[in-house]
């Protein structure tokens, strides 16, 4: 028998006993993405040209590559959290759900990893 009150037991936990962490992570990454995406969007928009030399020169400036890496990392994380919820909401067959969730994880790590590696190559010139 538990000595905790019924209210104490349910506070902050849904039927799955978890989830507030996911909710918080989604909101925090969303807040972080407001300045990061706006910075990226306006930086590209304000470049005189979008040709190879201009973009490459811009991205190889340390401040640009640093923020670009942060952007891709947070973007990938936020996008993963979002699509994870979409799969959980609409895919009810256990096998398909597990398969899709794992596939998403692999795809995001691959895509995010390749993007960050590309930025680093531009930054360090190799």
């Amino acid at each position, binding site marked *: 028998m538990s000595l905790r009150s019924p209210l104490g037991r349910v506070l902050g936990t849904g039927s799955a006993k978890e989830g507030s962490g996911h909710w918080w992570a989604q*909101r925090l990454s*969303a*807040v972080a993405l*407001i300045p990061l*995406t*706006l910075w990226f*969007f306006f930086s590209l*928009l304000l470049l005189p*040209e*979008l*040709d*190879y*030399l201009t*973009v*490459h020169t811009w*991205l190889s400036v340390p401040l640009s590559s640093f923020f670009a890496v942060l952007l*891709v990392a947070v*973007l*990938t994380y936020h*996008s993963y959290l*979002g*699509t994870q919820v*979409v799969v959980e909401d609409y895919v*009810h067959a256990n096998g398909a759900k597990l398969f899709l969730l794992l596939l998403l994880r692999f795809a*995001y790590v691959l*895509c*995010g990893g*390749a*993007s960050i*590696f*590309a*930025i680093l*190559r*531009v930054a360090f010139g190799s």
Partner: protein
Amino acid sequence: MPPHPRPLSPHLGIYRWQIGNTLSIVHRFTGIGLALGLIALCYWLVSLASGEESFRAAERTFASPVGLALLIGWTFAFLYHLLNGVRHLFWDLGLGFERRQRHLSGWFAVLGAVALTICVWAMLWQGRT
């Protein structure tokens, strides 16, 4: 699946269509679209790192009719998801729940995203010519 599937909430069969649920659905759709956009962003960055030749090839891909349509779609999706996302963050703070506020902020997100998308592409178009 349980032997007797219980009704899901909201019960879509009897749900009255309105701006609130429409924008919520659009938020989800733009989110999925932007997730696919990450692949394009990755392709663009990798092409940039791989040298001028491959960057030119990526440029040609993005400048094709399908490429342009996708880019314009992603611009709108990004701006809408951003504006409507801020709307959601205000709700999370417990603000803006009044009927009038919800409708106003909703229209602001939609029309703002459309207007900004047009502005951005007008700017890009001007830069080209």
